[in-house]
């Protein structure tokens, strides 16, 4: 079968929702720098996809999913852009956000009662085209979001330039998804290991290791293979304490 018009094919390939398996990125879609140069090098467009879904699948809660996004959220909020946090699992703690450089005045936190409301609120946030970034936590339940619903979000996201982060449970890694980027988070050697499950371009086989650790802990991990014995609580009691008396 021969193509009748090369122009038509060329025009088709220009579409943002079509990517070719042999190329990592298209020049048109510049990403938003993640703040981790090792990760940016592996992401098409050199950063988090703008105007597209990114699925983040942390192996379990607290592994570093927000530390990973800290630099990009800080950069966006400092430019005066809005950050919509939809259905976060706990209260985002303002002092930690401030310490990460995120302007908490630019946060809009949306609490929802059901998965349906979460999807609705996420779609509204994307359609409004008023946010610098949208973060949404989808329920842990399998099949909480159907492909068609995610596709709706993807289409809504394409109307703007905001990166969209969907936090989902790692069990759905095998399900198909319209997201432009899917990453699974694990740990390795005391740091954060980012496994790219899907990106627009050739698959990435090795995980990206990031030094995403809170400052107080970082110093203690010059050599992660030693010093893994739990500090006994009795010993901890003798540490010089930072006293706060008020």
């Amino acid at each position: 079968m021969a193509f009748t018009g090369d122009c038509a094919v060329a025009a088709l390939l220009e579409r943002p929702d079509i990517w070719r398996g042999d190329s990592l990125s298209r020049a048109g879609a510049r990403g938003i720098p993640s703040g981790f140069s090792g990760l940016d090098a592996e992401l098409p467009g050199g950063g988090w996809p703008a105007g597209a879904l990114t699925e983040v699948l942390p192996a379990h809660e607290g592994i570093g999913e927000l530390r990973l996004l800290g630099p990009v959220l800080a950069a966006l909020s400092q430019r005066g852009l809005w950050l919509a946090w939809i259905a976060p699992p706990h209260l985002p703690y303002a002092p930690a956000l401030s310490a990460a450089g995120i302007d908490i005045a630019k946060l809009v936190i949306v609490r929802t009662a059901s998965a349906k409301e979460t999807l609705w609120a996420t779609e509204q946030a994307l359609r409004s085209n008023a946010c610098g970034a949208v973060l949404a936590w989808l329920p842990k339940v399998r099949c909480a979001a159907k492909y068609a619903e995610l596709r709706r979000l993807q289409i809504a996201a394409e109307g703007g330039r905001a990166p969209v982060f969907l936090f989902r449970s790692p069990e759905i890694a095998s399900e198909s998804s319209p997201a432009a980027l899917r990453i699974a988070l694990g740990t390795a050697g005391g740091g954060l290991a980012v496994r790219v499950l899907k990106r627009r371009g050739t698959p990435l086989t090795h995980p990206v290791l990031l030094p995403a650790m809170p400052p107080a802990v970082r110093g203690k991990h010059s050599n992660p293979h030693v010093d893994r014995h739990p500090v006994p609580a009795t010993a901890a009691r003798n540490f010089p304490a930072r006293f706060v008396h008020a």
Partner: protein
Amino acid sequence: MAVSAALALAPRLRIVPRDPAGETEALLGIGGWAAQFTPGVAIEFPDSVLLEVSGSLRLFGGLESIVERLRRGTTELGWSTVLAGAPTPRAASWLALAGEQKFIGAAARLEEALAALPVEVLRREDETHAALEAIGVRTLGELRALPREGVARRFGQRLLDDLDRAFGALPDPRNFFAPPTRFRASIELPAEVTQAEALLFAARRLVVQLAGFLAARSGGVQRFALRLGHRDQATTEIAIGLIAPSRDAEHFTLLLRERLSGLALRAPVRAIALEADDVVPLAGRNLGLLLEEGKPPGHWEYLVERLRSRLGAGAVHGLASRAEHRPERTVASAEPDSRQPHLDFGERPFWLLDRPRPLAETGAVPHYEGPLELLAGPERIESGWWDGGDIARDYFVARTRNEALVWIYRERRGEGGWYLHGLFA
């Protein structure tokens, strides 16, 4: 035509008594809405609104553009109108009464256009019209051709004066209508409505009227209320609050749609009313010459209001930080975009649990998904003796067996014990 005769011709005819008060209210409503096009609005009871538009032509891009906006707007308000224009107010209202949708710009063409109108537009007593008919006068032109003294003697000077005003021979000053300071408009529904969503169509008419009213006053509202009137029960009120004043009819309609779609009606609705009390000045928006670099074009206020109208006001909020050492009191919810002091607290987790979760302890080692490894600490926080919420805790950063980092503390009073308070995420 008598009611009996009408019913004989059309047995399914629905007879509705005329409601003069309702007509007046409607006319005033249209007047308030139309004041957005010109400050010179005069009401001519019982059925006309006069607009002095010569000063507004440039602003709105010519007569055709104004007429088109008026036509579209009155249709959205739910009225069918006859629009006509002329150099004198009386001539314009007569043209409209005669059903002539004409717009006469030059005074020279006025003579000809008015001469062809039937004498009924004069709206005199029945005897006058009978007498005019008896002498064979059917149009204004024929009436004007009669000797003036004779007409004055027979029909009174006021008839002649009216004619002169229409033709521009006598001045015709009008009292301009001053729109009220608060907005209130209502619609009696043609049938009782049981589905809340079906009210939106009628409510939209009121919203358009409100937007016009606000545009006329260069103002906006920060809250308005839709009242649903029932037959026997007290009215249902749907109050809508906005973050910033607005007069955007589309946005108002969206907010009402969200609220109505989630509403279960207690009783069928017979009438709806829209009310807005506090009109605040709303300056027009200055647009930058160039698009601001990288700023998304949407309105975040609209997003927040839209989410709130469906999820509830408390479901959408921002964060505030307080100068307070007790971790659970350091944050509070606040309106988004409220400036916050920058406070340095040292190492703090991204997630704070709603309430600390007790942890098991084996051999002096706290357990959460397995034994915890303490990485940093203790940070002693002892505070709050003055308000009864005093705490005495030693906080540690710990690592779970899954390599997640958590924020835990050991209670220093009472029975002690370990608690999980945050996740570093």
